[in-house]
């Protein structure tokens, strides 16, 4: 079953991510993603929401150039950059060589993924060190540490920090290059709810303040509603985008929004869409909930 759905909701901004029929089949024959076509525009906070194993992480990694699509194409800033034509981007050998590197891009992983042998400061400045960009390192580092309120912990080692603080370091590292597109793969999945809510709020503020474009992966309906401008609902095996919901609530969002009736209604709608998506899909185990 190959279904292609195309989503173009926020037509306002420039196109940042463009996928055209991008699919992923693993060498062992497992089909992770059906052909997917989507656009993410400048200023979007686009969330991929779906059950475990629906391929949302794969979709995000494909966007970041960490894995290449089996067929179809993925392009970042397709309008501005002629050299990054879709056909080239999906070239398997390029991705395998690790040339998928795009300067305006940052990735926050599911785990903090910090270097245990390096202090917070050295972890955060890693992207600058690697790119050899020595211009204004101190100022950028200061700014990134301040954004996540970690300035007093610059010389501390990761293992001396709590899980939430480690995640903050990871976010500071992503922001230090002043990226235009931020990809986040269930960044707060392993944290307790209180910490998670606080970090969600901080990310929401950052997104509004820095005019970021964010692609966010989660399996939490609440998180999706709280953060997003658009939620792409995915279904599993093989993964595909089954539906989309626009969350046209004002930003920055506060804890008051979290307890509002509108929030509850949006969660209900999204929940219903998720159930429908999984009923629709080949694998209907989610229905038994």
């Amino acid at each position: 079953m190959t279904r292609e759905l195309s989503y173009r909701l926020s037509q306002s901004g420039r196109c940042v991510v463009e996928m055209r029929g991008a699919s992923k089949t693993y060498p062992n024959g497992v089909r992770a993603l059906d052909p997917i076509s989507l656009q993410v525009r400048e200023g979007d906070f686009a969330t991929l929401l779906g059950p475990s194993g629906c391929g949302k992480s794969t979709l995000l990694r494909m966007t970041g150039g960490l894995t290449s699509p089996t067929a179809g194409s993925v392009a970042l800033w397709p309008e501005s950059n002629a050299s990054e034509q879709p056909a080239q981007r999906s070239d398997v050998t390029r991705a395998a060589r690790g040339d998928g590197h795009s300067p305006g891009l940052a990735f926050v992983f599911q785990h903090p993924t910090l270097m245990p042998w390096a202090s917070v400061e050295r972890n955060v400045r890693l992207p600058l060190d690697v790119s050899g960009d020595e211009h204004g390192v101190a100022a950028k580092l200061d700014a990134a540490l301040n954004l996540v309120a970690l300035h007093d912990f610059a010389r501390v080692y990761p293992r001396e920090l709590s899980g939430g603080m480690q995640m903050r370091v990871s976010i500071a590292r992503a922001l230090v290059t002043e990226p235009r597109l931020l990809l986040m793969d269930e960044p707060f999945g392993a944290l307790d709810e209180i910490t998670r809510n606080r970090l969600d709020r901080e990310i929401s503020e950052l997104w509004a303040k820095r005019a970021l474009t964010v692609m966010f992966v989660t399996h939490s309906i609440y998180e999706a509603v709280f953060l997003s401008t658009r939620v792409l609902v995915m279904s599993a095996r093989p993964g595909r985008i089954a539906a989309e919901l626009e969350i046209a609530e004002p930003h920055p969002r506060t804890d008051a929004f979290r307890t509002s009736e509108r929030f509850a209604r949006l969660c209900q709608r999204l929940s219903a869409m998720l159930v429908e998506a999984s009923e629709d899909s080949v694998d209907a185990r989610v229905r038994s909930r």
Partner: protein
Amino acid sequence: MTRRATRWLAPAAVGAGVLLSWQGLVTAFDVPFYLVPAPSLVAKTLVQDAPLLFSALLVTLQITALALLLSVVFGVAVALVFVQSRVIEMSLFPYAVLLQVTPIVAIAPLIIIWVKNPLAALVVCATIVAIFPIISNTTLGLRSVDPGLADLFRLYGAGRWQTLLRLRIPSALPYFFAGLRVSGGLALIGAVVAEFVAGTGGTSSGLAYQILQAGLQLNIPRLFAALLLITLTGVAIFALVSIAAHLVLRRWHESELAPEP
């Protein structure tokens, strides 16, 4: 009593107990010194034969240190070559294993014939014994990179060198030190074994040669004294390597964290 004090006092008490009963038993049963010398006699011999034994110790130390140094230099170099490509590793690893499984006693005579300088011959033998743990552990360490961090380096366009220096080598350090701990002991064993083989040919004057001579002359107290020096050397090497590992890893690696009180 604190945990720290127990850690030192308990083994010290066991050691003292063993020495005292050894002394007591030898005296009580009037065991002849050419069979089992009393600890006091061993100590006396150590002082008496100090010039002979310590110059022998110096020779053995020299061989051990050189062998360990060569093992580290070549072992790490080989590991770095191995991780460049799986094909290289697959082609060469069997020969590293070959080196490891061949008993040094069997090839030492050949090396002693081939290498003219006796000291160099012994160093080569000891290096062959000591190098394998460094190669295998460092290779494993260089490969044991957190896949998330590897992705991150790829994402930021890090080159081969940057990835090696900033990611692979730091990741490999705990593994390297685990290998070094084993290799330190093996370098000493290799030096002693090589000296034994060379000693039967009449060359060299390290501690093992002294043990060999003392055995032939039934000078058992001197044999014990030389044995004591070798053991202490082994302990000292282990302690030095452990301290080095602690200094490098203490701030971040689980193996060097202080235990919870």
